[in-house]
């Protein structure tokens, strides 16, 4: 076990080292995958209407490149203009801070101090830039035109080459997507091609849909911010919109980082606080609207990735790959989570990154009860009750947890006393739940007795049913666990109109049959209902048939079914 853990750590370290060392190669590939995922749906849409693949590729990639080029040109001109204005902005900020210093103390004073430092930094950088520019002029005096051209183009060559590699890779990935998919399928699961093909197709579709939708949403977010800022009157609105759209890929905090620069500029150039406040308000309102209403509406309720995992993943990829890692973090995390959901060997990724709870509600409930955390257990059920109803919550959470307990007991993972303690604790939980919901109306026209077949868990099952029927004013008198012959005598004395027998399988069914036979013989008119939770009973239909043969009027498997049967009997 220890060597296994060591090997996992070594493998993880090796993977991180490969990702860090291979950054130059892996980043363009990852970006190309991202663009291929985003551009696949429009390319496929064109092909579906009969456009040949080459033309669809040309159209989609051409449109994307043109869009990028136009955006880049606009942004470049805005950045250049902003750079030219920085000197004057820094003076305005210094002036405003001086005014603040004169007029205020306390936190505002501290803020002004911080901003002064920033102003000094900007001034220093501007001075350095002027100094460097002077040096460049001196060098240019001794160079010919070709060298000047080379010196001008050199800083542009690397990003252009980088973009070119991404473009070529994207085009190839789009053109050969079926081939690429086939190779991935072959790598991941050649032994079961049909299932792997289906899951991979679904995974690819989900990832494409998610990334495309997120790209559209962030693009729209940036556009709305740009329009809003231009309405406020802030210069370089397009630049701030683009930065906001890009930074929104950073989960949770992206929009808040994006607000910093525009609000600082607003603070610098506008005389009062109104525009600065409006700028901040615009970002907050749009981000809240998009995050809480538009995203859930467009993408469905869940993105499939936990917010915390996304944040940690963002930190990791940014540390590893820098600003490009920041942009790629969300797509990479979504891809990893989706692949983990579909590829059994990588399931750990879905568990670690997915937004589904680590434990199902019933296991969660059982775990809390075992740990003695009754308050937490109550909250697990209450959460489910708020989503559905008491009956459904008990069926979905408590009944399966009782089955887990029975299974643990039969496998001797817990002893009888531990099982009894679990039952006691669940009874307490049930009482707490009941305490919060009084009877709706008193309508008891039928005497109903609850009879546990064998164990306290059978009694608990009946108490759960009683809690549900109590809501409609129908009490069930749940008897304590007692020897079965005595139990039969006790029931016969009460002459009830209905007997509900609770029998947790597999142990309870023998006694339940005995009780049915004896009660049917003694009380021929009595309705006998057997509640037999069924999930772990392998021979459930045979068991139910034998119970009916023994005299049961009806055999049900869930609390809700039992509740329905009791209500029906009451209505008769």
């Amino acid at each position, binding site marked *: 076990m220890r060597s296994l853990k060591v090997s996992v750590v070594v493998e993880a370290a090796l993977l991180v080292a490969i990702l860090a060392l291979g950054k130059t190669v892996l980043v363009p590939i990852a970006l190309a995958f991202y663009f291929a995922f985003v551009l696949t749906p429009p390319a496929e849409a064109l092909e579906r209407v009969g456009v040949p693949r080459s033309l669809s590729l040309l159209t989609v990639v051409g449109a994307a490149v043109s869009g990028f080029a136009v955006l880049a040109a606009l942004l470049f001109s805005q950045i250049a203009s902003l750079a030219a204005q920085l000197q004057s902005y820094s003076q305005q900020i210094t002036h405003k801070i001086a005014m603040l210093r004169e007029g205020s103390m306390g936190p505002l004073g501290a803020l002004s101090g911080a901003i002064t430092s920033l102003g000094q930094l900007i001034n220093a950088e501007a001075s350095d830039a002027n100094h460097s520019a002077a040096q460049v002029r001196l060098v240019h005096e001794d160079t010919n035109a070709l060298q000047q051209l080379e010196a001008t183009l050199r800083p542009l060559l690397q990003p252009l080459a980088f973009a070119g590699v991404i473009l070529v890779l994207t085009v190839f990935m789009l053109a050969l997507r079926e081939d690429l998919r086939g190779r991935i399928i072959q790598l991941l699961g050649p032994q079961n091609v049909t299932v792997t093909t289906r899951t991979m197709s679904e995974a690819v579709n989900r990832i494409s849909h998610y990334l495309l939708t997120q790209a559209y949403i962030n693009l729209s977010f940036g556009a709305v911010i740009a329009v809003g800022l231009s309405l406020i009157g802030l210069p370089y609105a397009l630049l701030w919109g683009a930065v906001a759209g890009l930074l929104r890929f950073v989960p949770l905090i992206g929009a808040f980082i994006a607000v910093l620069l525009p609000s600082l500029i607003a603070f610098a150039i506008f005389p009062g606080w109104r525009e600065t406040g409006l700028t901040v308000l615009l970002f907050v309102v749009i981000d809240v609207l998009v995050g809480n209403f538009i995203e859930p509406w467009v993408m469905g309720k869940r993105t499939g990735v936990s917010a915390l995992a996304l944040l940690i993943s963002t930190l990791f990829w940014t540390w590893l790959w820098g600003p490009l890692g920041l942009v790629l973090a969300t797509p990479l995390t979504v891809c990893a989570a989706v692949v983990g959901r579909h590829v059994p060997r990588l399931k750990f990724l879905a568990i670690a990154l997915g937004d589904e709870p680590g434990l199902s509600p019933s296991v969660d409930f059982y775990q809390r009860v075992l740990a003695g955390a009754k308050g937490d257990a109550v909250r697990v059920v209450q959460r489910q009750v708020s989503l559905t109803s008491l009956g459904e919550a008990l069926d979905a959470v408590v009944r399966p947890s009782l089955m887990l307990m029975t299974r643990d007991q*039969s496998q001797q993972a817990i002893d009888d006393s531990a099982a009894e303690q679990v039952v006691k604790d669940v009874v307490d939980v049930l009482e707490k739940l009941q305490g919060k919901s009084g009877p709706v109306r008193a309508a008891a026209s039928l005497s109903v007795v609850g009879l546990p077949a064998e164990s306290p868990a059978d009694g608990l099952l009946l108490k759960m049913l009683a809690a549900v029927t109590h809501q409609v004013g129908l009490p069930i008198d749940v008897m304590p666990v007692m020897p079965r012959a005595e139990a039969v005598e006790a029931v016969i004395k009460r002459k009830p109109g209905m007997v509900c027998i609770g029998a947790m399988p*597999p142990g309870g069914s023998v*006694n339940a*049959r005995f009780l049915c*036979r004896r009660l049917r013989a003694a009380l021929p008119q009595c309705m006998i209902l057997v509640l037999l939770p069924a999930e772990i009973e392998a021979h459930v239909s045979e068991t139910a048939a*034998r119970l009916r043969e*023994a005299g049961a009027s009806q055999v049900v498997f869930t609390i809700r079914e039992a509740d329905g049967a009791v209500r029906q009997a009451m209505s008769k």
Partner: protein
Amino acid sequence: MANGCKILVVDDDIANRETLAGVLENEGYAVAMAEDGSVAMSLLKNGFDPDLILTDLQMPVVSGWEFCEALKKSTVWRSIPVVVLAGMTPEQRGKLQVEGAFEKPTDVPTLLFRINELCGV
């Protein structure tokens, strides 16, 4: 006429097994047979769900003692009533937690009465 009850007869003596099975089937019981505790346990593990078990104590492989102890330890099978076909002291009965013990040769009407009682028939 069948009464819907199933009984598992565990005895290494084939003559005893078949005689008992005949008597019980005449009373309406469905009967399954096993020649020792190991075979009986396999039947139970495969999902056979009897209303009662009739077992001898002296058997090869897995004896009736061991079989009864295993049954009463299990949360799945401990509620199945067990009647032993051998003489036992009250202490032994208490220790094994069996519902009845009948010495051989068995008084069939008394045994049937007890079986009917335990099966609720």
